[in-house]
């Protein structure tokens, strides 16, 4: 079988193949540090049985959908109490419910969001309006010490 302009086509195919698989072989073998979100906040540490609103796996994959539904229910329908499948009731509010336990945005929310590639300051943009509880930044104390020493 003779292919007309065979060498151009084959070279072209080869180049296409290399480019198309670029994301696969470029990242191959690279070790990405796991997100490792921290669940250690005073409120969670004090909990007898540690549980979130939904099972953990569901919270990881569906929290954004849940929040979206909550937003609609609260703002548009005035319903502010969520009854979880476990029967427990929660107030549908980032500020007074989510942050009550997860008061460590930098070690909890941000770590996973950065891991998933949402590391721009504006993405997800929930926090440009919803007030994040103030937390002691790790290392902030150290910086203060260095300043003192330099004086």
């Amino acid at each position, binding site marked *: 079988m003779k292919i007309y302009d065979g060498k151009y086509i084959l070279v072209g195919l080869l180049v296409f193949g290399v480019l198309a698989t670029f994301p696969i072989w470029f990242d191959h073998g690279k070790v990405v540090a796991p997100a490792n979100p921290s669940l250690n906040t005073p409120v969670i540490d004090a909990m007898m049985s540690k549980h979130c609103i939904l099972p953990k796996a569901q919270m990881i994959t569906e929290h954004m959908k849940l929040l979206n*539904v909550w937003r609609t229910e609260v703002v548009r329908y*005035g319903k*502010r109490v*969520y009854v979880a499948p476990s029967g427990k009731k929660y107030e549908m509010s980032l500020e007074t419910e989510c942050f009550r336990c997860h008061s460590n945005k930098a070690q909890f929310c941000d770590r996973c969001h950065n891991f998933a590639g949402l590391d721009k300051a504006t993405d997800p*943009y929930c926090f*440009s*309006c919803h*007030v994040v*509880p103030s937390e002691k930044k790790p290392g902030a104390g150290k910086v203060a010490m260095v300043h003192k020493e330099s004086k």
Partner: protein
Amino acid sequence: MDKSKRDFLKIGGLCALGLSSLEVADAFAKSHATKFLTNPQASHAKRWAMAIDVKKCWKAEKKECKDCILACDWAHNIPDIPVKRQEVKWLWNEKYQNAFPDMENELEPEEVKDKPFLVLCNHCTNAPCVRVCPTQATFKSPDGITMMDMHRCIGCRYCMAACPYGARSFNWRDPRPFIKKINPAYPTRDRGVVEKCDFCVERLAVGKIPACVEACKDKALIFGDLDDPNSELRKALASRYSIRRKPELGTKPGVYYLI
């Protein structure tokens, strides 16, 4: 393989049935999965409205009382922006000729001219802002409040053009640097959305009265259900003469001024 047309149709029908049963199963799964409730302590009304006792307010104003405005600013994280045309206001004082244009005359007493009138969103029954909003970010809730859904607002400012009372403010810039102390229980806003008074819908939802009404020591602000003849509000309106801002426009404002 020998298949008749009849067999083919039978298999096709079975497949269609199988696929559609997925939808039915989904619907059943959803129907008893989650529930959303209102807080049992929430206050309910058919039509929330407010009356402002102007005389009581003026009496307090002599002492430069701004309790209601300060309470509102704190409760809703309202920024204090020094540039006048970028101000964000929910509840503020306005001169008579600005609050009630076309109603002033040159012979009215000096004290009326100079006295402040407390103004806020009128939560009109026939709200022009709601009619013009292209995304339904602003809408009427069943209890008569003209609500804002900040998530939906695209910042087109049609509502600001439509509001005859100037009750709406646009966030020309990030408000956070201009909030002296942030109330952690309430969100701030982002650059590019419109905001206004919402009759403290988040407080009504837990059975509290609006922050301004609660803050007024002189009881100059009366809040209640306009559709309930026994409410304090209706009694006040029945006993005193009241005016509303620009009633001739047909917006049916929900804020009354007791004269």
